[in-house]
């Protein structure tokens, strides 16, 4: 049997057995998988143990009414993304309006009209699928917090000044590596490598915002501000080097080429915002700090240190992070020398 829409996993909440059976059977007939709960308390228990795509929620219930369930869900970060359709009788229209204002996805009058039921449920499921896909996409580049912030603010393209730490990382002599092996091996190596680096960066509240060849750029402290963005960036860098050791052991075991990377971090004021068009936009940072981070990263090879940071990044780092002062350095195009430190792994 084929259904016009993808089936979903739905929770029907109603204290009235007739309504529960009616809604559940109607939805099951449409191919959905349906659970039921007879009051608000049971509904929340089920919502917390299983992952539902949509809730049909009665307003009038003993123990905990639909309004209270809705409020609880909207306050809970784990539950607030599940769309909720309120079901009510016609004369409860005031309560329904209140629920929709509060954040319910939609409403249905009881006795429920089967055509409307199908249309609203499928529309809500479709919207949720789109949101889930969007979120999944963002999450490959950013933390959950950032993804949520982006969805919440709706990608306003306005820029602003923020204080952040910017990281650049590159694989050394990557072009030469690419010439020594099969193209498929090179792409596989890059994918495995990026998977590890993303884990370290996202794990320390960073956002990877650019990939170019074998290089990446990440931002710490924006778009969501964290006071400890310097430390986050440095700890991410240390974890990247640590993960790379394991990666190289595996490479060696398969007779493949081990890789070395260089990481440069600079801290300061950057202009951050979304750049691009309505169809393709990325969160990015521009400004002097970004240029300095890129220059420091380029310099790691010559200095033979895997992680190097500027003076602003070094300020206020916890004592367990060991630094080696490399002295002032004058970078091309800069008027003033910058004090550089190597981070000991």
């Amino acid at each position, binding site marked *: 049997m084929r259904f016009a829409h993808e089936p979903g996993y739905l929770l029907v909440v109603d204290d009235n057995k*007739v309504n529960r059976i*009616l809604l559940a*059977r109607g939805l099951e007939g449409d191919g959905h998988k349906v659970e039921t709960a007879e009051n608000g308390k049971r509904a929340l228990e089920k919502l917390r143990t299983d992952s539902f795509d949509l809730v049909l929620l009665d307003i009038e219930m*003993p123990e905990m009414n639909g309004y209270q369930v809705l409020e609880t869900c909207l306050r809970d970060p784990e539950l607030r993304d599940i769309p909720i359709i309120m079901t009510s*009788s016609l004369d409860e229209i005031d309560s329904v309006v209140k629920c929709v204002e509060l954040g319910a996805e939609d409403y249905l009058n009881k*006795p429920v009209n089967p055509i409307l039921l199908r249309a609203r449920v499928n529309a809500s499921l479709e919207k949720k699928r789109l949101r889930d896909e969007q979120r999944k996409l963002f999450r490959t580049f950013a933390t959950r917090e950032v993804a949520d912030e982006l969805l919440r603010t709706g990608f306003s393209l306005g820029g602003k000044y923020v204080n952040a730490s910017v990281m650049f990382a590159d694989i050394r002599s990557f072009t030469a590596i690419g010439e020594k092996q099969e193209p498929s091996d090179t792409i596989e190596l890059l994918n495995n490598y990026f998977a590890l680096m993303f884990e370290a960066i996202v794990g320390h509240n960073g956002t990877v915002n650019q990939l170019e060849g074998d290089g990446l750029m990440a931002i710490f402290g924006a778009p969501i501000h964290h006071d400890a963005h310097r430390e986050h960036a440095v700890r991410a860098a240390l974890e990247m080097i640590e993960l790379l050791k394991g990666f190289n052991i595996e490479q060696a075991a398969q007779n493949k080429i081990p890789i070395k990377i260089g990481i440069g971090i600079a801290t300061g004021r950057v202009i951050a915002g979304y750049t691009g068009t309505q169809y393709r936009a990325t969160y990015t940072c521009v400004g002097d700090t970004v240029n300095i981070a890129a220059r420091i990263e380029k310099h790691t090879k010559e200095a033979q240190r895997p992680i190097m940071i500027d003076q602003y990044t070094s300020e206020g780092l916890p004592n367990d992070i060991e630094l080696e002062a490399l002295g002032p350095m004058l970078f091309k195009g800069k008027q003033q020398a910058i004090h550089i430190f190597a981070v000991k792994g």
Partner: protein
Amino acid sequence: MSIIDPATFNELKQMSGVDFINELIDAFLDDGPDMIQNMYTALDEKDIESFRRNAHSLKSNANTFGATELGTLAKELEFMAKENNLEVGNRLEVLKEAFGKVAEELKGMRT
């Protein structure tokens, strides 16, 4: 005139599927007397909220099956409770009697 509106009932049958109409009827025949009993208890205990909620549920079910008159009676009681008025007179007896008739008719509509 039938006490069950045939158009509403047929629509319901269509929505639930012929297989499930019996399950629905049984649920109503099971729960209906409890709702009415709860209303009597609520009246004794002056529990306006419980009275209102049970009247609301009965109204909702009556309307689902197309039992228009029963629905109207339950709705009246629900609205009285909403206005904090439990001076229901013999309305609860009338409601109980109406439910009995609806129940008889629904039993005959099982397939």
